[in-house]
């Protein structure tokens, strides 16, 4: 039976992109705890919220997460939800306007590519609220751009991978390249060194987020190169990587797959670690909460303490003592971020 990974109680706290991070945290925490008393979320009931998605809602990855976030809010707080799939960048602005005109109060653009459009429309409709994931705009009062703080996941997953691998070779199969991703990759390399100095981490890119066939080939290639741990971050591609891992395992060889973004364990229960969860529902819920509390817009980079990303179960796929090491690391970090050399970046 899988050991439960530490799941911190979900509280909001925003971290503005500046040096004196800790100071703010303290302040914020107290504020929020008070606010928890009389629940502002009640106000959300019956509000209309729309999602603008870049791809198919059933890709089992990026867009499905956004959909889940919407559903989560509907079920918990009774928002009325709608979404648009395959929204091309050039159409996004008009789509958001259409939503705005048809009475939606919160509009949620899921992806960095909508930065310009969401900015523009947000200014056109100052009394509506706009959320953008992976955006960076920080000074439009009704626009909330949100990202996962970078580094934590990378480091911890790298640390885990270091303890998981037996061949001391770990390989990422990633959709496409962008700096945020690159940073996580580099951090994972550091994390890995920390747990297993003789282990090396490498990565390769599919070139797209929905080409399982190619992802599978990359994973196969990596495994043939002597890697025995694959970390999958290719959305729809992951199913391919997992396939490769399954096939490899048939030869009675030791191999593990570590999920990233979402728990892929259901694809191969005895090979796939839950890995790192980027919990978009929680992320978005946090933002919506701020909206409900009437906090002004800005750029919000959420780290582990907000519970919007965390470690999934290990499903007993690595030795218990190793599991414990990871758990200890996380607890140590949560207790005192400075005590572990995880370099978090809130500016990505």
């Amino acid at each position, binding site marked *: 039976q899988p050991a439960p990974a530490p799941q911190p109680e979900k509280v909001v706290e925003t971290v503005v992109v500046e040096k004196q991070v800790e100071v703010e945290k303290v302040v914020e925490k107290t504020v929020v705890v008070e606010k928890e008393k009389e629940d502002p979320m009640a106000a959300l009931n019956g509000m209309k919220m729309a999602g603008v998605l870049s791809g198919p809602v059933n890709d089992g990855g990026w867009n499905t997460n956004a*959909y889940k976030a919407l559903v989560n809010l509907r079920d918990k707080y009774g928002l009325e939800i709608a979404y648009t799939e395959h929204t091309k960048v050039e159409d996004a602005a008009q789509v958001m306007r259409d939503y705005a005109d048809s009475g939606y109060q919160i509009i949620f653009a899921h992806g960095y590519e909508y930065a310009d459009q969401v900015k523009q429309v947000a200014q056109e409709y100052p009394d509506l609220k706009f959320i953008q994931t992976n955006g960076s705009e920080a000074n439009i009062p009704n626009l909330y751009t949100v990202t996962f703080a970078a580094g934590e996941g990378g480091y911890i997953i790298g640390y885990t991978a270091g303890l998981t691998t037996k061949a001391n070779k770990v390989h990422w199969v990633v959709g496409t390249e962008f700096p945020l991703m690159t940073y996580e990759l580099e951090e994972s390399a550091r994390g890995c060194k920390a747990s297993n100095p003789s282990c090396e981490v490498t990565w*390769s890119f599919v*070139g797209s987020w929905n080409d399982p066939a*190619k992802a599978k080939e*990359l994973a196969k290639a990596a495994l*043939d*190169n002597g890697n025995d741990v694959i970390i999958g971050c290719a959305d729809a591609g992951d*199913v391919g990587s997992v396939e490769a891992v399954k096939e490899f395992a048939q030869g009675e060889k030791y191999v593990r797959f570590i999920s990233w973004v979402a728990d892929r364990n259901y694809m191969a229960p005895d090979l796939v670690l839950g890995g790192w969860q980027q919990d978009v529902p929680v992320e978005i819920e946090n933002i919506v909460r701020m909206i409900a509390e009437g906090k002004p817009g800005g750029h919000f980079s959420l780290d582990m303490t907000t519970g919007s990303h965390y470690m999934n179960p290990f499903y007993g796929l690595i030795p218990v003592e190793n599991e414990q090491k990871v758990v200890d690391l996380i607890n140590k970090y949560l207790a005192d971020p400075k005590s572990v050399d995880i370099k978090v970046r809130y500016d990505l």
Partner: protein
Amino acid sequence: MLEQIVAVILSVELYTAVVRMTTPLLLAALGSILAERSGVVTFSMEAMMLLGAVGAIIGSGLTGSAWLGLCVAMLFGALVGLIYAVWAVSIGANQIVTSVALNLGALGLSSILYVMTFAPAKGEVIEQVIQVPSLPAWKIPLLGDIPVIGTVFFNQIPIVYFGYLLIPIIWFILYKTTWGLKVRAVGEHPHAADTVGISVAGVRYISVVISGIMSGLAGAFLSIGMLNTFQEGMSAGRGFIAYTAIVFGKWEPLGVALGTVLFGAADALQLRLQAMNLAIPYQFMVAFPYLVTFITLVVFVGKAVWPASYGMPFQREGK
């Protein structure tokens, strides 16, 4: 870096990968040679593949048998072929535009069918990747045990073997059967064929449907052969590559096969090299197979002689 590349090129796994990457192209391209030879442009393979892919998933998912999945895939491919034939042969519409339209429609239709089949309830969303029974690898008894050759060629899923067989089969049909003769005649001089009582439209219909079936099979290879799932637009332009391979191979089964292998090899190689973490931007890696094909085409293959009635609808005048 160099020795790494050499290492990759010398590895057996590369060549198994080449076979995998080549097969879908091979099936579609070879299966479409007849249609092309009869004078119909098969720019619509993309659509046929896509519906084949989804058909395979549906068949396999509903019946639980990958084999039935294959049948459904071929059926879907054939249907697309039929529609294409109506436009390209009977109506005589511009074949490239018709293909472009079909490819677009197939993108939508395939995902509609996928969702309608697997969505937990009407209007709901498929949150977890659907996984269905996929085709198992068949090891050919004796051949499979040959050291390198065996692992590379004879340790694959059945469709792959069918791909091998397709090369001689298509060649045989084309050059050793009366029907193949008709196909060639129709493509080169439909009027002559017509005057000796061959039904030009008939021949073209059949060839195009065959192209559909084979491309459907190629699609099935992607969804339940290589994997066990479906993705919107998972054919990812392979239909176009198959088309280039046909022209590249000058409509000769062997040449076409070589064309597909060339691309498959380049693709497999770039994927392998990526896994080595070389200091090459991956966009270049992705473009690599296309570059290789282009350069080989220009430098070694030279200009192609097209079937005389290529892409032209045929109708008797004066009727």
